[in-house]
């Protein structure tokens, strides 16, 4: 183990060297002290320059040393100003107007759980670095975020932010670490092929969201929600980012065209009137069982009471 480790981290043995190189300002006090000590053999740029000169008065030496000190500090400070705070300067200069708006909203409504700069708070909320604007838009426009309470799964509810605000927050999160983004536009269904979408929906989606898109139960109180209220952008974002318990259907699994096919099928089916009458929530044979007893048998028992005697 140790034999294998050694060649991997050679720098670990000489940390002082690395530190010494980086801390350039530490050399400055040494060079400024050299003429005062009167040791001509000392190496260094400033000492050599000063070495051949005749000794000056104490006051002049002191003033000269002070001036050199100020110059050195100015140089170091200038270097520091030029390099070190560069990152900060870049941030504030490249945040778009939308992202700045989003940052304000983020800091007032999301920071409690997701932490400063979207880094997450252990036990409260995950890091948002890299989740992308698509995830933010899905969670915020469906009202799932901000979350009501910690539970098995966030419920869809009345959204707290407008769509524009949600996109602003998305832009801010996107600026923090990138991630999946939605294409532009609100209409992802017009170009989709309904038949292909139906085929893909039945194979990929119906095992949780059910054939009629009414949703279904998962384990331990989790569930796949109904798709009847979802907009095109929300369905697209859900496939792209896999919110809650949903798997991610990235563009390698379902191409953008296939996603549009699925959205076209979902929109067609949710807007479609049930041709057979009242659809009973499209939940399959369970409500049919209720109807046959609560409507069929009850009505016919009343008819039997009407026709025949009671006791």
């Amino acid at each position, binding site marked *: 183990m140790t034999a294998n480790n050694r060649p991997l981290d050679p720098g670990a043995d000489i940390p002082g060297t690395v530190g010494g190189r980086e801390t350039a300002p530490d050399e400055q006090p040494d060079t400024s002290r050299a003429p005062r000590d009167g040791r001509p053999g000392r190496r260094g740029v400033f000492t050599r320059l000063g070495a051949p000169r005749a000794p000056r008065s104490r006051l002049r030496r002191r003033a000269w040393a002070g001036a050199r000190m100020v110059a050195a500090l100015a140089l170091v400070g200038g270097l520091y100003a030029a390099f070190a705070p560069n990152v900060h300067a870049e941030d504030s200069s490249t945040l778009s107007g939308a992202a700045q708006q989003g940052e304000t909203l983020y800091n007032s409504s999301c920071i409690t759980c997701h932490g400063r700069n979207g880094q997450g708070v252990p036990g409260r909320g995950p890091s948002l670095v890299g989740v992308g604007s698509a995830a933010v838009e899905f969670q915020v426009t469906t009202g799932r975020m901000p979350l009501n309470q910690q539970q098995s799964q966030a419920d869809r509810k009345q959204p707290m932010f407008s769509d524009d605000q949600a996109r602003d927050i998305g832009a801010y999160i996107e600026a923090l670490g990138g991630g999946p983004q939605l294409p532009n536009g609100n209409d992802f269904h017009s170009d989709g092929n309904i038949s292909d979408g139906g085929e893909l929906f039945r194979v990929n989606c*119906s095992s949780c969201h059910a054939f009629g898109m009414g949703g279904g139960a998962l384990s331990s109180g989790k569930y796949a929600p109904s798709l009847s209220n979802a907009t095109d952008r929300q369905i697209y974002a859900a496939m792209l980012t896999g919110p809650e318990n949903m798997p991610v259907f990235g563009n390698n699994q379902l191409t953008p065209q296939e996603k549009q096919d699925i959205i076209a099928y979902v929109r067609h089916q949710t807007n479609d009137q049930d041709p057979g*009458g009242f659809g009973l929530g499209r939940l399959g044979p369970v409500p049919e069982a209720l109807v046959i007893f609560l409507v069929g048998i009850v009505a016919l028992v009343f008819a039997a009471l009407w026709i025949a*005697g009671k006791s």
Partner: protein
Amino acid sequence: MKRRKVDLADLPARSAGEIDDRLQVASPLRRLFNKVFPDHWSFLLGEIALYSFIVLLLTGTFLALFFDPSMQDTKYNGSFIPLRGIDMSGAYRSSLDISFDVRGGLFIRQMHHWAALLFMAAIVMHMLRTFFTGAFRKPRELNWIIGILLFWMGFTEGFAGYSLPDDALSGTGLRIASAIMLSIPIAGTWVTTSLFGGEFPGHVILDRLYIVHVLIIPGVILALIAVHLGLLVKQKHTQWPGPGRTNSNVVGVRMFPGFALKGGGFFMIVFAMIALLGGIFQINPIWLFGPYKAAVVSAASQPDWYVMFLDGSTRLMPAWEFRWHMFGNYYDIPPLFWPTVVLPGILTMLPIFYPFIEARFTKDKAVHHLLQRPRDVPTRTGIGAMAVSFYLVLLVSGGNDVIADKLKISLNAMTWAGRIGLLIIPPLAYYVVYRICLGLQQHDREVLSHGVETGIIRRTPEGRFYEVHQPLGPVDEHGHGELPYAGWVVPKKMNRVGALLPTLRGFFKPVETVEDVENEQSSNAPVSPAPSRHHEIGTGGRS
């Protein structure tokens, strides 16, 4: 040419005479027409099943004109846009054509499906009536067994019909059925491969199920119904006990004309109800499920309600697998075997033998034509409640994913509630129902002994209050009634013993006037003066 005058009034009698001269049907028909049906609503539950079976035959014939059970691949090009261009079997394509391109096809298909659900529901209701009133006792054990066979025939017929459209739901059900058959030790593989003609799904199963569905099982059901009704005529109806009703007579209306009119009317009502359901409520939207593919299993895939209890038993069964080594081979009983093969076996055999088991325990070998009220046989009623609650737990568990999702309950909690409930609820139901029966009996006995509460409170000179009771018959020296407990309705209100006039007859509105009733009955009222009618008019309550 001179035409002879036809006497129209004489025509029916003369033509009937001519027919009888040739066929000699007068005597048997007279017996049939004179058959007496007791007049009680609970005797009509079985008729609902009979009438929905007739509707099933009519609508099924219509569907068979357009249905094609082929499993050949075709491309759909009909009116339903979301499935255009999709590869599917001929069976699914023709089911879609029936739904969207045959005039009235969807309506008839929905009627057919609702009639099937109603057929099974009415069979179960009829069975409950027969059980809880003791109508299965000697001499009617055979008819009880035929009824159980009819349930299982209807069950199989329904399942075959559910599988025919070849949509993803029916394919999922068929896959489960093949898995159930495979789980049978030793024989399972042979049974499955011979039924499917090889590995599931094969190419022949729909053709076979089609013939089973349209010919074989309907034939068996028809034959069983014929025997069921033949035995009913031969053994005569049971009836509730009551004035003038004994173990050796039947009181009611004759087949002709009274009951034929009622029965014909009831058939129309059942037909109308099925048509109403088929027109209003969408059932089995096969176009949403898409063609069957092994990879497509939708959430909320349930069987129809009469199969759902087996789905529930499968969901509740823990994954207990038995594996052993014998004759150099490994044998294995999968967990599916117990809830789907053993349990239905028990659920068939127990009711079949129940009449004999009960006769053995009660040592009752007599012939019974009078029914028993459930409260008078608390043990049987308790056992029935136990069976019903057991069945209901399984039925609810069969839909537990939909219930969990819609009522926001954890699915795991539903499953465990079902497992625990299946063991605890039936004994609890037995105890509670047993006590309720005893309590109802007790109240009947109390009224027989102490009389009906009159609502009149008297105060004695020394200040004691008591309520005056109206004895129902002669009393002994302590003022206790001497009427024996007869196992029949005991009047518990004063207007039931004639103190007040009975309310006007009529279901939705009175069919008689106040004057009619007063003229007819006021002089017979046992209390004097006879109470006035004018403040006692109500609806319902025909005695």
